[in-house]
């Protein structure tokens, strides 16, 4: 039985009989929650190549909450000074602790120029913490409308807190006064970030 393949696993002792895996390059992922939103930095991942980075990005950052568009790029590109003459996507972290936010794109001949232009065009008079720039040629853009990321064709309510809120509230109210349920639920967290 499948369920029992995970129990009574023999205890292995001694050195691990596996090879060390070489360190993978790090990739940064930006996601857009809905069409009217901008791309926000979601997090990073380790993957040996671009194809697998996209695969992991979908798995880790695209399937746990709504996502209509996703960009994946090698971390090294974001802070690189060099580059070719092309369009660069620009991301600004407005303060320490905040998520990088996509602000726009500029044509530039390298990373330094792209970030300088970002300061002029998008950060004038504003305080910011750091800027990332990414050459368009180094970014993989996945469009959820043609290449599905978050599955919209089937009901995903089972994997969101909001999918249970009403029924749970009703069940609590059968057991406790509304005021007690309100107090108890005041510590609930929202289900999007």
């Amino acid at each position, binding site marked *: 039985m499948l369920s029992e393949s*995970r129990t009574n696993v023999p205890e292995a002792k001694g050195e691990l009989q596996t090879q060390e895996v070489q360190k993978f390059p790090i990739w940064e992922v930006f996601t857009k929650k809905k069409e009217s939103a901008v791309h926000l930095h979601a997090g990073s991942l380790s993957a040996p190549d671009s194809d697998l980075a996209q695969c992991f990005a979908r798995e880790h950052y695209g399937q746990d909450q709504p996502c209509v568009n996703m960009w994946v790029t090698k971390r090294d590109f974001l802070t690189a000074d060099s580059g070719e003459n092309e369009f660069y996507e620009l991301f600004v972290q407005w303060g320490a602790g905040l998520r990088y936010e996509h602000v726009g794109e500029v044509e530039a001949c390298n990373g330094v120029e792209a970030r300088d232009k970002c300061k002029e065009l998008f950060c004038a008079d504003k305080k910011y913490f750091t800027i990332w720039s990414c050459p368009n040629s180094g970014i993989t853009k996945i469009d959820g409308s043609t290449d599905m990321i978050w599955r919209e064709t089937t009901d995903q309510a089972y994997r969101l807190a909001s999918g249970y809120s009403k029924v749970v509230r009703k069940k609590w109210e059968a057991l406790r006064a509304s005021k007690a349920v309100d107090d108890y639920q005041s510590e609930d967290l929202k289900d999007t970030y």
Partner: protein
Amino acid sequence: MSASANVEVKVGDCSNEDPQKLAAFEEHVANGGLIEPNDWMPEAYRSLMLRMAEHHANSEIVGALPEGEWIVKAPSLLRKLALTAKVQDEVGHGQMLYEVAQDLGKSRNAMLRDLITGVTKYHNCFNYPCPTWADICMIAWLIDGAAILNQGTLAHGSFGPYIRTMRRINMEEAFHFKHGEDMVLTLMSGTDSQKQMAQEAFDRWWEPSIAFFGPNDRPDELERPAMRWRMKTATNDDLRQKFVNRFAPAAMATGLVINVCTKDDQGNVTSATPDPLLKLDEETGHWGFTQPNWEEFFRVIRGNGPCNKDRLALRRFSYEQGEWVRKAILDGTTTPCKN
């Protein structure tokens, strides 16, 4: 689910650090400032933050093991979908946290191997057995509920990448928790045997839930690095009290009885008597409760719990069995998967 509240770290003093830089760092953090990976930080901060993130990541990975066992035995298609999604989320949290830890200076690979060989630890509550479906329900309600309380405060910490990860994780924990409530409420409004199964699981999980926040505070708790540097923003005892205040009356409203239990070496409950200290102090608004058995807690942390060996054996088995996948990936013989 997870927690880093009870990670015990001995932090070397900062006598080798530049006193001016250290003073500026401490002032920045004390004033609510946040630290990003490229900012200057004392070595002790870096290593403590790394160990906290690594312990948290380990807990996410190991926490998924007992739950994964129940996917094929879930009682309905909806529960199976939700539990599969939860397990996927937990492993994803592990991956995100390993990335945070990796940026602080330890390779993912070393972390995965140290978990298997017992060099590093994971959250203690996963060393207890999960014999019935009701245990899955109680874990999702109580342990994820405890994790949300804890992580809600960790999300106000001082290290940028960790707090961003915490916020993302919390949003997914919100689903785990609501689903847990739904499952517990379903059992407690069901048949007598469902209620009995829920009570028995509750007896197994109440103590690990209140022990989840870690050992009692020390007299100098606020002066210790984790609090001083705002990696933690609430003490273990404060969080535990908050948890009991929220969950004790809720559990009683469903008909569950809060018992003080004794357990055998396999984690089976051998006696259960209603907690004599359980009452509301009208003045403070706090619920009294019996402390967890700390002697047992430390014994289990040291590797002598009911399931320590099973969890690590399964983790090791999966890692060794997955060797060909890692090889295939490195040889470039894979093709990317899509939905």
